[in-house]
């Protein structure tokens, strides 16, 4: 279905059809009017000629007081037909073969169309009174009837002539209008083409989209321009984020592989004792374990960042008790806390069922708790607190470390960010922990935030919707880690 619609063509055709319709209506009106005018003029001419014929009826100067037709000074059309007769039916004069037509008793002139030999004629029937010798006893009265007609073809010819003139003028006008309109439309639509050309330049390597001034100035194009600019900006940001992630991931993996490769090659450099080999193998295994961990976390993050399938049914099906999970996470991290001499206080005022898979929830909680432990100086306290609100659960983990710097804060949840440009791994972890936490929270419409506590240390605040998830509960979570 590749239907293409041209706005230019559509507009042109619409305007032309409208113009044509008006032209046809105009021609119709002109026809009616012209016909009327022409026939009035024609009738006037007929009557005038008939009157002059009447005038030409004169005393025959004979004994019988008869009348005769004196055609001198009377002009009739070449192809006209007439007959002049008196009250006795005596024909005083004629031309052609006019029909016998009835006159009105009132004597008013009568017009009638008659076909003679296939030719249309219009006749006038005129009655007149002629008095001969009016001086003597009132004279002799003669009732004269004049039938006079000429072909109407000439009138129609004139009407058609007028119509033809208007039709030709209209056609020329239509042509000119169409041409001017197409030109104007093209010109008017040029901002669209300019915008398209500019938009065409966008590619994954060149994200610059500078809407042409013409498009910016066009009111109708402004929403499109703004939408394009916004879309390009969003795409660019997400594309760059992806690229950064890929670069960082490549860096991590290459480093891990470099370690393993160098460990094995070192072992291979010369013949070694059995102890040396077994120690080297153990080290290599450790190195591989770390690579495995990195890969696993990357895959976890990738899985979590996929949009949840069947949004709702899936997540409702999976839910867990947040209190159990928090207690589990705290229990699991006890050994590390004891190693560092950190005391952990847990305060779970209420339980809440959150729409997260229990393994993901445990991952979230233990990541946050371990993070707090890692950033806590030895012998300090880490406080874990779970509170429940109307439609959300709030988990806070507070430590007494050095807090987060304003520099790091915007990047804490970015993959592989370690608050250290070298991405040194001495502090442990792959730099994916917080990204995974964020992905878990955002997947169910929750949030995670990190801020500093005035007393010193950082506080991670996680807010999660309670099952069943409220349709549009605007949840905000904040996590503070230092």
């Amino acid at each position, binding site marked *: 279905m590749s239907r293409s619609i041209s706005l230019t063509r559509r507009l042109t055709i619409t305007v032309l059809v409208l113009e044509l319709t008006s032209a046809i209506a105009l021609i119709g009106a002109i026809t009616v009017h012209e016909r009327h005018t022409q026939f009035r003029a024609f009738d006037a001419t007929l009557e005038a000629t008939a009157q002059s014929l009447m005038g030409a009826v004169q005393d025959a100067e004979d004994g019988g007081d008869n009348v005769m037709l004196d055609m001198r000074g009377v002009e009739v059309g070449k192809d006209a037909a007439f007959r002049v007769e008196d009250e006795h039916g005596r024909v005083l004069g004629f031309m052609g073969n006019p029909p016998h037509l009835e006159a009105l008793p009132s004597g008013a002139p009568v017009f009638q169309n008659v076909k003679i030999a296939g030719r249309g004629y219009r006749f006038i029937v005129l009655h007149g009174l002629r008095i001969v010798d009016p001086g003597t006893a009132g004279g002799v009265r003669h009732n004269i009837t004049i039938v006079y007609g000429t072909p109407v073809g000439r009138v129609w010819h004139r009407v058609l002539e007028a119509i033809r003139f208007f039709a030709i003028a209209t056609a020329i006008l239509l042509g000119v209008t169409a041409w001017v309109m197409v030109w104007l439309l093209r010109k008017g639509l040029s901002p669209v083409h300019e915008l398209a050309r500019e938009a065409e330049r966008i590619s994954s390597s060149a994200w610059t989209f500078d809407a042409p001034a013409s498009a910016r100035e066009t009111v109708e194009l402004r929403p499109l321009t703004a939408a394009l600019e916004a879309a390009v900006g969003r795409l660019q940001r997400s594309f760059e984020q992806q690229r950064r992630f890929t*670069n960082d991931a*490549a*860096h991590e993996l*290459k*480093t891990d*592989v*470099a*370690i*393993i*490769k*160098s*460990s094995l*090659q*070192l072992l291979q*450099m*010369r013949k070694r004792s059995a102890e040396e080999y077994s120690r080297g193998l153990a*080290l290599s295994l*450790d*190195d591989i374990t770390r690579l495995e961990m990195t890969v696993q976390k990357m895959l976890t993050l990738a899985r979590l960042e996929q949009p949840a399938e069947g949004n709702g049914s899936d997540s409702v099906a999976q839910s867990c008790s947040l209190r159990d999970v928090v207690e589990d996470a705290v229990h699991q991290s006890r050994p590390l806390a004891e190693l560092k001499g950190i005391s952990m206080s847990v305060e779970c005022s209420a339980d809440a069922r959150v729409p997260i898979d229990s393994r993901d929830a445990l991952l979230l909680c233990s990541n946050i708790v371990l993070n707090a432990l890692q950033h806590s100086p030895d012998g300090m306290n880490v406080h874990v607190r779970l509170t429940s609100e109307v439609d959300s659960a709030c988990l806070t983990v507070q430590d007494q470390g050095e807090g987060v710097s304003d520099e790091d804060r915007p990047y804490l949840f970015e993959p592989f960010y370690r608050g*250290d*440009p*070298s*991405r*040194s*791994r*001495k502090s442990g972890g792959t730099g994916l922990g917080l990204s995974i936490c964020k992905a878990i929270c955002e997947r169910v419409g929750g949030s995670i935030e990190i801020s500093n506590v005035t007393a010193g240390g950082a506080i991670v605040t996680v807010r999660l919707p309670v099952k069943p998830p409220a349709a549009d509960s605007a949840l905000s979570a904040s996590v503070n880690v230092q």
Partner: protein
Amino acid sequence: MRVLLIEDEQRLAENIVAALRETGLAVDHAPDGETGSHLAGQDVYDAIVLDLMLPLKSGQSVLRDLRREKLHTPVLILTAQEGKESIVELLNAGADDYLSKPFDLGELLARVKALIRRAKGVSTSVLTSSDVELNTVQQTVRRRGHFLELSPTEYRILEYLIHRPRAIVSKQELLEHLYDFDWEHHSNVIEAHVSNLRRKLNIPGTEPLIETLRHRGYRLREENSGL
């Protein structure tokens, strides 16, 4: 020969240090940019292996500062970054060579040795001085065709001296270039090694190769000059 490795990745650094030591080089390791820059500034290294992503100070800054101080120690860059641009930039900034991670350990060793050789004006792996032939790959020494059994330290002293023909090399210089910080070293240790080396080189029918200049150091004698 003494090499400085500036690399923050602990396990990778351990492996590289071990490999460089096994190939007969003295190695110091700096785990961050600041330390690395400080050590490199002492100008006792014959080559530097430099990672780019370092805590405290980036590899680029370390390299730039080194060159700004007019130190010409050859530098080999280790990078996990893609992109030719950064490599071109680094080479222009004064790096001598680079390797992308994951690299081949053998290649790293060969490149470090080649850098050291070239910095001393030698382009092949077999060094000769008068009738002595020193193979840096197999780490063997021959005089007039006879293989000599040298200890690793003796070999390194001889290698260093051959790299500096006609120059007087002080005991301090030998100490600086042959030992890393992990070794206990005193100048009398050097004396003992040099004396052993001189004895082993002294095969019948030849003249003593190493001259001792009192209070100044040692010099490799060029026999040909006497002809």
